[in-house]
């Protein structure tokens, strides 16, 4: 079993076995990242494929200042954003004026990530991207605005809408579980 440095060195030399090993090591985790930014698995796999090609082509530039998985994740996110940006050109994000947030903050502890993933994928395009960037990747609204070419206010409103939609779904799920005696939330 090769360690990470050896994998990187092999990938830098274009060694196919090293590339495969690197892929095998990170593909599952990266597919989750891609799934968060896409609507379907096929779309996510396309992003994964394109992202890994970029990884192998650009791994010579990886300076090992950050963790490898962080670097690969960033590439996947950027690849996903590039794909989604084309769609956003067709359906530009706009400010959402009336957002009704629930009085009580809901907790997601114990929720199955598959269910959460389905909820995120069900969000509108702009909301999905902004939610992922802000809530999971940890970008600020200013950075998101720069990344997506939108205003900071739009980013905030899109996130608020995403959060509202998710919480509404969670409340619905909560009532469902309350009714049938199993609470996940």
């Amino acid at each position, binding site marked *: 079993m090769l360690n990470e440095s050896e994998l990187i060195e092999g990938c830098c030399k274009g060694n*196919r076995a090293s590339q495969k090993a690197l*892929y095998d090591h990170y593909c599952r*985790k990266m*597919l989750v990242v891609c799934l968060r930014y896409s609507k379907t698995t096929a779309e996510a*796999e396309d992003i994964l*494929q394109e992202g890994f*090609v970029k990884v192998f082509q650009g791994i010579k530039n990886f300076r090992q200042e950050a963790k490898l998985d962080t670097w690969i994740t960033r590439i996947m996110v950027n690849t996903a954003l590039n794909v989604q940006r084309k769609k956003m050109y067709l359906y530009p994000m706009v400010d959402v004026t009336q957002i009704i947030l629930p009085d009580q*903050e809901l907790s*997601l502890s114990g929720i199955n*990530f598959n269910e959460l993933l389905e909820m995120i994928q069900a969000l509108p395009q702009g909301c999905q991207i902004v939610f992922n960037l802000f809530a999971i990747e940890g970008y600020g609204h200013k950075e998101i605005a720069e990344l997506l070419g939108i205003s900071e206010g739009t980013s905030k409103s899109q996130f608020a809408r995403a959060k509202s939609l998710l919480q509404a779904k969670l409340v619905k799920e909560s009532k469902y579980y309350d009714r049938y005696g199993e609470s996940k939330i």
Partner: protein
Amino acid sequence: MTDMESRKFEDSCKAAFDGAEVNPSDGVWTNIELDLEKSEGSRTRRSLLFYKMLAAASLLFALGVAGIGYYSIRNQDTPYVLSNTDNAISGLAGDAADADPVGAGRAREDLQDNAGQRAGERPDHGLASAESSTGQPVEPQKGQTSGSNGHHVSAFALQNILVIPSEPYLARSPIISFSEASGANPLVRKLPELYTLKDDEPLFDEEEPDPGALLLAQLAQEEMEYAALDKREAEDRAERIWTSVGFAAGGFSSVNSSVSSSAANSLYANNSSTVPDKQAKASGVAYSFGITVGAKLSSRWILQGGVNYLTQSSDYIATNVVGDNNFGTLKAESINELDKLQSADYNASGRLAPTFPYSVNNSVQFFSLPVQAGYLILNKKFSLQLNAGVSTDLFLQNTITPEGGSLEKTTQGSGADSPYRAVNFSGLMGTELSYRFGQHYRVALNPGLRYPLNSVYKTDIGIQSTPLTFDVGLRFRYIFH
């Protein structure tokens, strides 16, 4: 809802995805591999293209350097005619003034100072003006200074100096080339020796034409002459029309000839004569000579025709003589005489007198008009061609010549009294092997066959004779151009 409370939701979302994994399908890696191979291939192609471009650039650079070197060396040998110093200076300074009045003024002063020094020291050196530097000769003008009047040197042959002008002028016109300036000027530096010539040696007069132009004109003239020569040679090589004269000798055989029984019974057999059969079947020699004209129809096919005089001579043995009514004159026994006997309704048997066997020569002459098509198998200096055609043979006469001197020699021309057909047609076939020994001459050896398409005798004679002739001809051909 506080910010802390708000952040809990995001953190819990993030935590929900920690450690989450989903297996991608197997096709993803396959597609990644394909993409990588594709990009590696295109990278290799780009590298190849880069090296190709690099090689091409290197080649161009080498050619450029070689060209500049060659041009420089040539200019050493054949310099250009230059104008005098003052004009060049004024022209140059004037150009500079147009571009930058302030900087040009200084440049003009420097240039004129330098030229003034040179006018006293080395009057034979002029200034390479802007025009001369482009290779265009500059005519001297009136009012030239005495020192520089009438002296011509090359722009590159000068002891050239590169002067970098003052900054404002430099901004618009980077380099001025002119005659040697003082060494004190820090902006002055010499060009390489490659571009210099010895002093006081005007290379050629102004009136003398440009040697390069002369050489080009001479080359063009020579090229035209060579082209004309090539054309003439090509025409010389072509054999389109020719005429030939020649003779042929060979033999003929009439073994397949026959005498019909009815004819033999009525005409000859009753007279106990065997001459018709002997004469008709006699083999002999054939001679011909004539003139032929030929033309090439295409690269391989030719057509030729002409006129020939043809003689076929054969011997047979006769055992009778033919006499007149009182046997006052005796003639050799032949088909001719026997036919006359039958036609005259004489008592043929009474006119024939047996005698000792004697030899009779029958010589038949034709005027032949052959037309043949030929196919050139080999068409070089040595040529080989196949010929085939037909010949129209006009019977001229036949001569019966008995051996010894006691019997008269008889000649029978074409007509009713002649047993021979007036016109015959023969098939011709042969080959022609020739050798060209000059622009106009070719000698050919052509063996051939001649076979009559019908009997040479008239039909009512009752004799079928188609002598097959084989002869070998020698022809001298004259080729027209």
